Every structure is written in C-alpha cells, then in structure tokens.
C-alpha cells in the first residue's frame, strides 16, 4: 500500500519513494519546508507539508498576513486529514469544516463545474474522513484552507499515517535529518503489515528513512530484504568502493542473528538491485547501496 502515491509526490514519504533525501540541516531547502529565512517565496510555495490542524493553527496564530511560518519555515501548500463536521454547498464553492481530533479548520473549495478525477463532492459527507490539499489563508483574521483537492479517505490507515508523517516532518524541520545511511533494521514501518515498534526518531529504528524501498511488500523470507538493505547501508559498506560481496553480506546478516542461505541472499540482492536500492559493482555477486 503506497500512500505516498496519493495525489502524486507530496514529499517526505518514505513509503512513496518520493526522493526524501536527507538534507544536511534545518534551514536548508527541502521538499516540504522551503529554505528558512531568505528563501524565495516562489520556491516555498512549491513545498507541501502534512500538519495536524492544531499544530497548523498554533503556529500561524500570530500571523497577520498570508505569509505563514511553522517550525521556522515558510508554509506553502499544506495537507490535513480529518472528519467533515459541516458541509455547505453554494453556487461556486463548497465550505467544509474539517476536524481531525486536534482542532478544526474551515476548508473552502471552489467549484469549476465538474468533479475532477478522485475528487467527488458526493464523497464529502458529514462524518467522513477526507484529505485536503490547499493553501492556508486568513479570512477575517481567521485561518482557513483554500483547498484545491479534497479526497475522501477510503483506507483508514491513511489517517494514522498522516499524523505520523506530520510528526516526522516536524522533527525533520526542527532537528534536521537523521544521519544519512543510517541502518534501517526496523521492520514493519511499511504500511502493508502491522507495525512493530517504530522506535525513536533518529534511533537506528527509523525504518527505511529516505529509501525508495520501504513500500515493497516483505515477500517470502520475511524481512530479509530490509535486513539486507540495512547491511548494505552500514557505514563500512557505504565506504567500501565496491560495496559488499554476497559472502560478506551473509556474514553481516549472521552477526545480526540471521541464518540464511547464500541462494536466498543472492535472490534478495537481485531483488534489491531491481528495486534500485543496490547495484552490482565489480562483479555480479558484489553490490553497493545506491545510498538512497
């Protein structure tokens, strides 16, 4: 299940392969925060951030015009997920009140005469969960979202996912990216299966951070793929010019307490290579992480 694909690449999705590359520190440009300080507004307007409504309203409470900032970064496009608590359709626009349990915000969506694909007004019933993409605006000094896309949520895991994403983006912008190439041994962060413990931020359990691979289902062999990926992302494996041979990878896996056959590891390496996580170097049985 790939929620990163909802509405295209909306950044910071370790599940969607959206190229969530670690930026060196807060304040540097990245996909959803724009550059802090003197960054050009036009660039910031391209960013997209997931918010809890409370966080959004809190951070923007002191704004007196339409230039909002949160976590020290300009806000461009925002996405919130919540239940529709009020719905009013007028000739040219629809107003919704959306409540996500943390707060409530008004969303105005202008109608252009026809429903666009994936966006059906019929789905915006009171009591249903929707995901809103839009821009934050002040109307009568009250913040509201001008939504350019409102979609009904059909899989409730997306609600959980949204809040986790909001926390992750907040952390990324306030504390900086986790170290690049951090091993990712935590299984189950993918949406497909039940989550184990996601672990603390920045801990080794950050889970497929920045990798295009995490959305792939754990096929046969359990979590061999993610373990193997972690092995190829070990510092010494990243630093070695040719990466690791399959034999070395097996040795690393054994050190992690996994006993797997060479054939299984070879198959897993080929799988990771097909996914773009690793590539073969000096020969067909030596692989190196693409560093993503």
């Amino acid at each position, binding site marked *: 299940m790939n929620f990163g694909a909802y509405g295209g690449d909306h950044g910071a999705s370790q599940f969607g392969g959206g190229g969530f590359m670690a930026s060196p520190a807060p304040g540097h440009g990245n996909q959803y925060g724009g550059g802090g300080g003197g960054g050009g507004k036009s660039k910031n307007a391209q960013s997209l951030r997931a918010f*809890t409504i409370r966080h959004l309203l809190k951070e923007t409470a002191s704004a007196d015009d339409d230039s909002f900032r949160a976590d020290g970064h300009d806000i461009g496009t925002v996405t919130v997920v919540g239940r529709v608590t009020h719905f009013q359709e007028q000739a040219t626009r629809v107003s919704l009140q959306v409540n996500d349990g943390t707060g409530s915000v008004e969303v105005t969506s202008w109608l252009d005469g026809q429903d666009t694909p994936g966006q059906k007004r019929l789905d915006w019933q009171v009591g249903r969960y929707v995901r809103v993409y839009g821009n934050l605006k002040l109307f009568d000094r009250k913040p509201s979202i001008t939504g350019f896309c409102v979609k009904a949520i059909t899989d409730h895991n997306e609600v959980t996912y949204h809040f986790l994403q909001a*926390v992750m983006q907040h952390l990324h912008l306030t504390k900086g990216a986790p170290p690049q190439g951090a091993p990712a041994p935590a299984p189950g962060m993918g949406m497909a299966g039940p989550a184990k413990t*996601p672990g603390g931020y920045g801990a080794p359990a950050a889970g497929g951070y920045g990798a295009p691979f995490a959305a792939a289902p754990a096929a046969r062999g359990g979590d061999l793929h993610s373990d193997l990926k972690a092995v190829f992302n070990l510092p010494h494996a990243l630093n070695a010019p040719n990466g690791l041979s399959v034999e070395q990878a097996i040795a690393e896996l054994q050190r992690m307490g996994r006993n797997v056959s060479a054939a299984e590891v070879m198959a897993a390496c080929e799988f990771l290579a097909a996914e773009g996580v690793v590539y073969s170097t000096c020969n067909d049985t030596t692989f190196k992480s693409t560093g993503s």
Partner: protein
Amino acid sequence: MEDPSPRVNFETMQRYHGRKVILCGQITSIENGCVRLQTADKGEVTVTGGSAPYEGRFVEVLGTVSSPNTIQELEHVNLNDNFSLEMFNELVKLSHKDAYIGMFST
C-alpha cells in the same frame, strides 16, 4: 481553539475522564446496543449509546469517557479490515509524548 479529542488507547483513556476522545479498537461482541472493544494495548472497553450500525472488525469511536472502561458514543466510523491497530497504538503513544503533545492537544 476548541477542545481536542485526543486519540487514545486503553492506558491513555484513563487520563480523560469526562472528556471527548477518539478510540480505535477491534469489536469483540455486540449485545443490546453495547459494543465491546479490544484496544491495541489489550484493554476491554464497552461503548454505549451507539445508534448507527457497526460493520466490520474495527471501529473508530468518538465519545466521552464515562468510566475507566466505558465510552459514551457520540459517533463512530467503521474501518476496513486491514486497519492496523498496532500502528494506531504507536501513534497514540507518540502523540502523548511531551515532545509532541503540543501538536495534538493542550
């Protein structure tokens, strides 16, 4: 800003007596309009006062905590069978950590 309705599990529900919360759980039985749920942290919660039908295995209940293991329902949302209670539980734990509670409540 209006009062939040925090997402809770059995453990964190105890902090919100008399307040509105959002609880996700797995339906274990339905009798006489009382729905019994098991939460992700293995608590048993009885939901009273629901009017709309319950469907599927999982449900999200918005309601008021009326006793340590009872919620008076205001509304509920039926969830897909692939809903991950475990992940919801992780979110609940995260959203009650001091560092992030400001994003969710208070």
